């Protein structure tokens, strides 16, 4: 039972995109990633049932939640402070994180915090 959950978590690790291969400076990056995450959840929900579905959903939620806390949320904040992202997209990214935490019944303390260094804004002129 626990082993199944661990295996599901291991499988879901491969879903996460490599952060350095995503062009976050594109204003469409964050909305696209949101759509991608939602599609993942929909696929798992419709493609499985019963205990398997529960395990897969929990594995996916844990993978996405940790990825968000380490990579996506810091990037979202920096891009928002740089004025490249609308408020709505940033808010839906944070809402999704809150939903995942509610689903897993966690506060997200155990996930690694990303810090600010995933992406840094660069000012052009002097």
């Amino acid at each position: 039972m626990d082993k199944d959950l661990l295996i599901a978590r291991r499988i879901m690790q491969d879903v996460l995109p490599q952060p350095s291969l995503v062009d976050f400076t594109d204003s469409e990056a964050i909305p696209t990633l949101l759509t991608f995450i939602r599609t993942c959840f929909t696929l798992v929900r419709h493609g499985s049932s019963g205990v398997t579905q529960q395990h897969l959903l929990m594995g996916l939620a844990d993978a996405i939640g940790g990825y968000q806390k380490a990579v996506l949320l810091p990037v979202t904040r920096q891009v928002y402070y740089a004025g490249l992202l609308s408020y709505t997209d940033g808010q839906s990214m944070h809402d999704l994180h809150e939903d995942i935490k509610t689903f897993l019944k966690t506060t997200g303390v155990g996930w690694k915090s990303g810090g600010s260094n995933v992406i840094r804004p660069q000012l052009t002129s002097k």
Partner: protein
Amino acid sequence: MVAYFFDLYLLATNTKKTFCLVTPLEVNSAGDNTACDQLVLEKGTIDARKKREDPLKPAGQDKILNDPEIGIPTHQQPIIDEETVTKIPLPFLDDDDHPKAIAIPWKDKSVLSLSSNDSAYIIPKYYTVAVKCIAAKSNSKNDIIRFNTALYNWLTKKVVLRLNDDTWYIGFGGVLRVLESMKVFGINYGDIDKDQKRDDRYIYKDSVEIGKHPYVFSEGSWSKRGQQYLREAVDVLKGNASGKSHLVLLVTFFIMIVMIAGVCLVCSYWSGARDPKRMLSNFSKR
């Protein structure tokens, strides 16, 4: 394995995408009197001595001292050391370390929560309105530069330090664009406070200082050990000298593969020699 190294190769080749370029605000610096109506302006005084040629002497002092008859100044103009001006108040936060609210000198709704929808992109809005108001009140470019310097001091002391927090401050949206446009409009670098507690990373340098490998995440985001491994691997891919330890690892890896292959050959030869059927087939060939 191949996919892993292909990922590392992509990591090594893609360096520019870790930055996002910040574009300045498009502020129409033509004066707009309606902009001033949105702001709470306060009357204040500034030290007028700064405008004179010799800032150390108060106005008209020479005349007073050289007048032997009466001690009271006799000239027509009063002594003006302070000049009445219209001031635009700067915004401020309720707390420096954990801000929850921001006060902006709007005429309506001046205190806003930093975590609410209402305060989204509030600082760029304030900056745009303030610059338009200043342009409407005065023609001199120095006023805008003085305002820029004051706002710059406030931003780098209070706001920019908070941008790396784990909290999302909705009210700080577009702050970096404001900093960028202030550089376009001009800042008086002489008047900037030399304070320890500020974050100058975004301003002083042409480009933000980056680590040796900016595409490998810097401290705090990943474990240092894994980071070191990644750096070594990237060094190997880029052909740097510091990645020699990884090269040695690779060489030992290939030597081990060759040795294992040799052992397999020998074993198969032995097993083949002891297998009677293969022995027979060998004999029959001969």
